[in-house]
């Protein structure tokens, strides 16, 4: 079974530029998450989708971050304009909806460096 796919793996941009990350979850997983992991810290949830609807985006900096999940499958996370503090690994995860097993399946992440 294919895992969660993310791209690009690495991205370096100047502050105030824009960047987009793509995620394709495990087939059949209705719930998709974007987490931000700053170096040396635990992942922090940015946004959670159930199919193509947003369940929780309370910690998403909406003035600069946006995310969409068209057709309830893959998703894009965009940052515009980027700030230095956005340097982090952006992790996409998916899970089977409605089952509280605590098991999220994570991709390998997209590492963003903002200069």
């Amino acid at each position, binding site marked *: 079974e294919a895992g*969660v796919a993310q791209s690009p793996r690495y991205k370096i941009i100047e502050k105030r530029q824009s960047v987009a990350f793509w995620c394709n979850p495990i087939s059949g997983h209705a719930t998709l998450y974007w987490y931000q992991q700053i170096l040396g810290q*635990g992942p922090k949830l940015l946004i959670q989708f159930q199919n193509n609807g947003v369940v929780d985006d309370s910690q998403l900096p909406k003035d600069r971050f946006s995310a969409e999940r068209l057709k309830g499958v893959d998703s894009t996370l965009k940052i515009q304009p980027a700030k230095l503090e956005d340097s982090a690994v952006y992790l996409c995860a998916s899970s089977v909806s*409605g089952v509280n097993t605590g098991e*999220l399946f*994570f991709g390998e992440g997209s590492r963003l460096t903002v200069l």
Partner: protein
Amino acid sequence: QQQVKQSPQSLIVQKGGISIINCAYENTAFDYFPWYQQFPGKGPALLIAIRPDVSEKKEGRFTISFNKSAKQFSLHIMDSQPGDSATYFCAASIDKAAGNKLTFGGGTRVLVKP
């Protein structure tokens, strides 16, 4: 109230020794407590998990101990091996119909010396 506090931030253990990582939470609505293991350059992967109605769960060399009254839980890695060198995150979630929303601790970097 959503915070999960994890300690220590890092630890070094000799091969064959025991690694112990502790976590504490405040929100009594949390009802599922997984531990994730993360290797450099990889995403976290589920290692073991426990629910509040169980005080201990063991899978191979990994054991979770859970103290509901103290709102604390811990991970014990017995007979630690160099391949266990990784960052470990405790987490907590609240059962919701729309999937799991995990709150992670800050992580513990474990180094097992051969």
